[in-house]
Each structure stands twice: as structure tokens, then as C-alpha cells.
């Protein structure tokens, strides 16, 4: 470690040399980078799992590898397509090793998790893009929703549908209320990014431990069917899980349509792109911001109920989901609702697939490693458009 006082032409430090080498690499032709990257990925996958034990397997592996690289060539500067090809490559290898059935079964398990991530990520990304707020309290919105459903469903002994509606409603109100008393006034004062971020952490504490204050730390369960399963094509899926997947996807599609078709959705996306620009173009920003909170918090409440339904309730339920949700937001490109939606589902599935290779306890770590790698290679996300400097 050497500070920058050396004169010109003198030796560079290790760090600088390494950084220089990284820069060199980043300028290499695309196919070379893609080839090296996929090769390393395959190597890791194969070594982490087991070695190919027949010539046939080797040939298949090499064919998959070659096909992937070949498919990448025409896809330069289309990161979403690139990601899809890489993903297809990974799936092909997994199927080769573990069979179609196992891969599909885990994929289905991943869909419910993915739906939860996606529901959380859509709101988080809109808030992030529109309000420049890195909302560390978003996970605790999920927890809040789950406990609201618990209140209706278990304490008041009403059907879960009412609990779900109540959760969505109250979480949405929580979001709007906080905008009115906290975020709006803070924006008015021109608060900085870290200032708002730390405030969000403080808020997260208040919500999480407020829930702990009322309900304690013990695990609680919503009144759902945990035993029935649905079988089709030799695959098994829990009844509750299936409901989560179906309702989750319907909601996600509806959200997508709302963002694409309605005036409000278009305005949200415009604001998420550039708040100042949208303001000068005459959009009533404060109204759109309120609707954004309504959606973001409402979807978070829904995601929280889902998470509670397929697992158990405890005060850290949402916080434990927050980082993967953040990963989906970054992978999708901050502010990009469609990106977050897609990335959330894909991430849920990929995380489940990773349990084919690594210990289940490490599946979230796999998600974080993917996040870090994508951040390094393409900080603007897979679905984000590169901004000019």
C-alpha cells in the first residue's frame, strides 16, 4: 500500500497494477470475456458438483459450453439476452447432472420464493428510483404485512383472504403515512442519500422491534393448509405454495400491465427515470409519489403474507428477505420495475437450483455472490440501460 506521491514513471503499487489488469480485461473483445467467464462458471459448477465420469458427459459439457459461447456472439451489448444464455447454460449442465425431474422440482419450489422476491422488489425499485431512497425498512414492511394477516387470520379467526386484504391495506397505509410524516418533509429539506438510508435503518428498527414488542420472538403460523400437495407430471407442489405462485404471478402481471398501460404507471416510470425532468414536464409528482408508496407498500404487505404462509412468522421474517430483494432490484437495474420483477423470479429459482450444488444453508450466499459479480461486471443491472457519463 503506497499513497499517490510517487512521481511520474515510477513504480506502480500492487493495487494499481491489479486495477490496471482489470481495466485491460474490461477492454478485451466481448467474446473473449464471455468465453472466459462462461468457462470459469462451468468449471466452478462442475468442480463444485462432481467430475464428469464418462466420455459422453465430457462431450455433452463441451458442446453446451461451445453452444453457449456461440450464442453469445450476436448478443453483444444485450445483457438481458446474455444473462438468459448464461442461465440456459447453467440449466443445461444441471439437467445433465441431476436430471430434468430434479431441476424442475426445485425450479417450482423456487417460483414461490421468486414471486415473493419479485413482489418485494417491484416496490423497492420504484421507491429507490423515484425517491432516491435506499429503503432498508422495506423488508420490515413485509413483516408488518405478515403480522397484520396473523392478527385477522389467527387472533380474530377470520379466513386468510380477509387477512390478506387487511395486510395489503394496512401496509399501504403505513407506506403513505410514513411518506407524509417522514420522507416527504426530509426530501423538502434536501436530505442526502446516506442520511435517508440511515433514517430508513432507524425506521426498520422501530417496525421490527415494535412487532417484537407486541408479538414477541416466538415462531407463529398463519392458519393455512400445510400438508396437502398437488401432483402433476410427476412433480409435487404444496397447495399453499401453489396458491402463492398463482396469486403472486397474477398480481405481478397485473402490476406489469398497470405500469405499462395506465397513465399513472407511465408517470411512475417516467419519474423513476428522472424526477426533475418529470417535474418540469408538468406531472403532479406528489400525487404520483403517494401512489408509488401505495403500490410499493401494498405489494410488500402481500409478499409478507405469502412469506408467512409458506414459512413461519418471526420479527426478522422480512429483514431476512431484504437482501435478496435488493439483489433483485440491482440485477434488474435500479428504478426499472420490469427488471426487478423478472430478476426477482429468476433469482428465486436460481437460488433454489443452487441447492443442487451447495448446502441449502448457503443458498442465500449464492444469491449475494451473484449480486456482487453482477455489480462488478455491470453495475447498471442486467435490465438497466447504460447511462451516459
Amino acid at each position, binding site marked *: *500500500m*503506497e*499513497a*499517490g506521491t510517487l512521481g511520474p514513471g515510477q513504480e506502480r*503499487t500492487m*493495487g*494499481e497494477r*491489479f*486495477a490496471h489488469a*482489470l481495466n485491460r480485461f474490461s477492454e478485451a473483445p466481448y467474446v473473449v470475456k464471455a468465453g472466459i467467464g462462461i468457462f470459469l462458471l462451468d468449471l466452478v459448477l462442475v468442480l463444485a458438483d462432481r467430475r464428469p465420469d464418462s466420455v459422453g458427459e465430457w462431450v455433452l459439457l463441451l458442446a453446451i459450453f461451445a453452444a453457449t459461447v456461440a450464442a453469445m456472439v450476436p448478443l453483444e451489448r444485450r445483457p438481458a439476452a446474455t444473462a438468459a444464455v448464461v442461465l440456459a447454460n447453467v440449466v443445461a449442465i444441471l439437467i445433465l447432472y441431476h436430471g430434468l425431474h430434479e431441476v424442475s422440482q426445485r425450479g417450482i419450489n423456487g417460483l414461490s420464493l421468486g414471486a415473493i422476491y419479485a413482489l418485494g422488489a417491484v416496490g423497492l425499485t420504484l421507491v429507490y428510483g423515484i425517491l432516491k431512497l*435506499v429503503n432498508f425498512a422495506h423488508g420490515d414492511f413485509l413483516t408488518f404485512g405478515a403480522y397484520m394477516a396473523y392478527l385477522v387470520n389467527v387472533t380474530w379467526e377470520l379466513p386468510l383472504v380477509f387477512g390478506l386484504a387487511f395486510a395489503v391495506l394496512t401496509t399501504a397505509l403505513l407506506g403513505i403515512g410514513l411518506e407524509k410524516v*417522514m420522507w416527504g*418533509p*426530509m426530501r423538502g*429539506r*434536501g*436530505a*442526502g*442519500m*446516506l*442520511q*435517508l*438510508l*440511515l*433514517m430508513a*435503518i*432507524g*425506521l*426498520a*428498527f*422501530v417496525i*421490527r*422491534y*415494535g412487532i*417484537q*414488542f407486541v408479538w*414477541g*420472538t416466538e415462531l407463529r403460523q398463519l392458519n393455512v393448509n400445510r400438508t396437502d400437495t398437488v401432483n402433476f407430471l410427476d412433480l409435487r407442489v404444496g397447495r399453499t405454495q401453489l396458491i402463492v405462485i398463482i396469486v403472486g404471478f397474477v398480481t405481478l402481471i397485473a402490476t406489469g400491465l398497470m405500469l405499462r398501460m395506465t397513465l399513472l404507471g407511465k408517470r411512475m416510470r417516467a419519474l423513476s427515470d428522472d424526477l426533475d425532468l418529470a417535474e418540469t414536464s408538468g406531472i403532479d409528482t406528489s400525487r404520483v409519489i403517494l401512489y408509488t408508496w401505495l403500490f410499493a407498500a401494498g405489494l410488500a404487505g402481500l409478499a409478507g403474507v405469502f412469506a408467512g404462509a409458506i414459512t413461519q412468522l*418471526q*420479527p*426478522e421474517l422480512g429483514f431476512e428477505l431484504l*437482501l435478496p430483494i*435488493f*439483489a433483485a432490484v*440491482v440485477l434488474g437495474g*435500479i428504478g426499472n420495475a420490469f427488471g426487478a420483477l423478472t430478476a426477482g423470479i429468476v433469482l428465486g429459482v436460481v437460488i433454489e437450483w443452487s441447492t443442487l450444488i451447495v*448446502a441449502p*444453508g*448457503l443458498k*442465500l*450466499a449464492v444469491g*449475494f*455472490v451473484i*449480486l*456482487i459479480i453482477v*455489480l*462488478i461486471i455491470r*453495475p447498471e443491472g442486467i435490465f438497466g440501460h447504460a447511462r451516459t457519463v
Partner: protein
Amino acid sequence: MTDPLAIFPLGLTFEAFTDIDFWTSVGIFAGIYTIFALGLQLNVGFTGIQNFGQAGFMAIGAYSMAILTAEEGMNFWLSLPISILITIAFGLIVGLPSLRLRADYFAIATIAFAEAIRLIALNARDLTNGAQGIFGFDDSWDSISESIEDFIIDLGWTDVPGLFPLFLVTWGIAVLMMFSLTRVQGTPWGRVLRAVREDEDAARALGKNAFSYKLQSLAIAASIGAVAGWLLAIQLAFVVPDEFQPIVTFIGYVVLVLGGLANYWGVAVGAIILWTVLEGLRFLELPISETKIAALRFIIVGLVLIGLMAFRPQGVFGKREEMVLGD
């Protein structure tokens, strides 16, 4: 684990309020968090990099010391500098690719790193013994601790609390660090760090390798985190993954903003205030259960953080002119 700060059995009676053993222990935790947050101060307050992975560096410091001593049979004193080197290496590995990122991406990347480290510690059972954790690395410390105790007894204070030597060492290290960091901050090196905090491009246009300085800052903060990790390990007498949750970093930020940004001595003030208030709350005779009191402590921490950010973003002792949050 829902209360990572629950360092004592709940249900202490009011007698403990005047118990010197109890407050010695609180003092050690305040000292550990002071050291922990000094690294954050260097990063956030003086370099403008938002390191949210400090708990991860703390974990690496604690684990490498414990693994080297308890499992590899290395001499305890040798394991300390080596664990520092390992942590610095991780600091560089994390920093090299991620310090080029925008501030918010860097924050998310570092918190993801810290969580990945914790999950690996939880699952790599061969190395870390998983959730059971590692014990038996502190024999050398115990003998040192006893000699310090004997020395104090010789001075005439006979009922020395068992943890008092650790208290002395922790605060000795903390004060030494505050003193040296303040000194180093006043050098031209520190001036470049502040310039990088203010405007990286301006610093680069004046011939300063901003990236190298950020990397140095992160590596030093990581090694400071490692020291906090050792002390935590010694205090608890074990190392488990649960001690390194992201909330530890968040609490570090609370200490940081309580004490004020861009001020090393303020960190100690922040840590002392936070721990006195947190532990003092135990003695409020409230007619509620202990879980509720534990929850209440964090609600208060959260409210303090919100209030500070809303009304005094430079912290209690920070200078408004050197405020690095609001803009």
C-alpha cells in the same frame, strides 16, 4: 437470535445497577463498539465511502484468530498480526472491484459481502464449527489477564472484577487508536482522504490517486474491525456467526452519528452514551416482560437514529461545516 445485544442474562435485579462487574462488562462492549465504529468513521466521515460490511471484517478478524489458535495450534500472539493481514487481504479483495461503484451500490455490495461471510461461517462446519462456534483460543489471554489482575491487587485494590483487565486493554487500544487516527488525519495523507470525500474528481485532477486512497482507507478500517473482532471473541470466550449480523454494522452507524461525523473522539462518546442508555434501561421497573424490554431498547435506538438524521444529521458532536450527510 433477535437481540444481538443481549449480552447478559435477562432479568437482572436492581442490585446489578450498582454492580461493578456488570458495568465493567458494559464498558468493554462500549469499548469494542468504539473501536468498531472508528473504522466506520475513517471510511464514512473522512473518506466518504459507505462501508456497510464492517461486521464482515470483524467476523474475519475474530474467526481467523480463533481458527489459527484453537484449531491450527498457532501461538495466540502470532495469530493476532496474521489475522490482521488476512482481514486486510479481504478488505482489498472487496475494495478492488467494488470501490469503483457508486456510493449506494457500494453500500449494498458491502452488506452483501458481510452476509455472505456470515452464511459461509455458519455452513463451512469443517472450518468454523458452524453455529456451535469455536472455543478455547484464549488461554494465553487468560494468563495475561491474571497477571494484570495480580498487578492491580498489588496496587491495593483487592476485589478487582474478573473482566477488569479486558476493560483496561480494550479502552487502552481504543484510546490509542483514537489518538493515532486523529494524528494521522492531520497529515497530508489525511488531507487527501478528506479531498476524496469531498470530490473525487477534483482530487484526481490535482494528481491524487483517489482509488488508492479509498482502498487504503477500507483496508485500515477492515483491520480496525478485526481488532474489534478479537476483543469481542475474548469477551464472549467463543466465536459464533450470530455475533456478526448486519445489525452490528447498523449499531456501529448509530454510534457514529451519535458521536458526530468527522471526529474520532466523538465515536467514544457515542458508544458510551448508547451503551449506558441501552443497559441503564434494564433497570427501569416496567411492568412488562423482558422480551418487551429488549424490544423497547431497539425501538429507542431506531427513534434516536431517525431523530438524529432528521434534526441533527451531523451528529451530536459533529461540526455542521464538516457535515458529510446532508448534501
